[in-house]
């Protein structure tokens, strides 16, 4: 049995993208294992949300005693970039069958968008095979690796302080998001306003700070 060239190409392209995600998924699994709530609920987020930053945000804020409104708001704000992916793919998906128009968006993660947006000129069938190969292989590896982190995390000796990898991961995500001067302004404003509003209960200061940061970024980009 031979593998379809679109599938083969999808697997070849997804592997280099998957490798850097492995430590992220392991740390996320570890954060779930450390959190004082059901591991199963934490792990379910990998499939219910299927987005690492948002899942890490929900897990960490829940464990740190944030209020429900703040957790949900922060988790959703983290995800807003997906509106952009959706808008970019709307014309591409209009040529696709109905089942794919429903399943496809579920798999529309950052990495899938980055890889498949290079294939939008392929035939609809070819695009679909490539997209599903990338999205589904990512999905399977993601679920398994988060579970692995959940199992391995607690076994690792306490002295290794692996739980410190969680704040490091947030710093890494912050650094990755700063790619221009206005985005640096956004980060500084958001950090400062969050600091000032630490006294607001249930960690709602995160939302106040994030909104101020977005405003700061927009203003900075107009100068």
């Amino acid at each position: 049995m031979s593998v379809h060239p679109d599938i083969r190409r999808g697997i070849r392209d997804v592997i280099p993208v998957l490798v850097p995600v492995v430590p992220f998924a392991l740390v996320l699994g570890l954060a779930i294992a450390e959190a004082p709530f059901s591991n199963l609920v934490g792990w379910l987020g990998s499939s219910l949300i299927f987005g690492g930053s948002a899942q890490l945000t929900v897990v960490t804020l829940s464990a740190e005693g944030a209020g429900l409104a703040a957790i949900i708001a922060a988790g959703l704000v983290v995800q807003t970039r997906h509106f952009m992916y959706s808008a970019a793919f709307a014309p591409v998906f209009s040529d696709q069958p109905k089942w794919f128009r429903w399943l496809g968006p579920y798999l529309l993660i950052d990495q899938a968008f980055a890889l498949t947006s290079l294939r939008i000129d392929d035939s609809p069938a070819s695009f679909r095979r490539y997209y599903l190969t990338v999205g589904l292989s990512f999905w399977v590896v993601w679920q398994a690796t988060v579970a692995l982190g959940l199992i391995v995390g607690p076994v690792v000796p306490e002295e290794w302080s692996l739980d410190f990898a969680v704040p490091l991961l947030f710093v890494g995500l912050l650094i990755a998001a700063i790619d221009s001067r206005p985005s640096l302004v956004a980060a500084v404003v958001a950090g400062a306003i969050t600091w000032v509003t630490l006294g607001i209960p249930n960690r709602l200061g995160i939302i106040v700070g994030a909104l101020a940061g977005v405003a700061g970024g927009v203003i900075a980009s107009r100068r």
Partner: protein
Amino acid sequence: MTLTVLALVATVVVGIGTYFMRSSFIHVFADREFSPVVRQALRYVAPSVMAALVVSLGVGGSAEVGIPEVSALVVGGVVGWRARSLPSVLVAGMVTLWVLRALI
């Protein structure tokens, strides 16, 4: 509400919200486009919310923060800034933490 129920509710709502965002323009707002201001604002969401999370979890968190921890975060951040890769942040930060804790 127990912590497990809280986490479950948050996960389900964020999951539904995420699917809605990913499918929004494919299903609901097909044929519509973003105004330039919204498009611009979306670009600054990631740096803003990540900075807010780092401050809120770092300063207002339950963990004890000393010299090794702060140094590890700074080294991880600087290395990540140069290398532009997430695994390098983790490796640099953890190694810094281990070395400093062993020395201090």
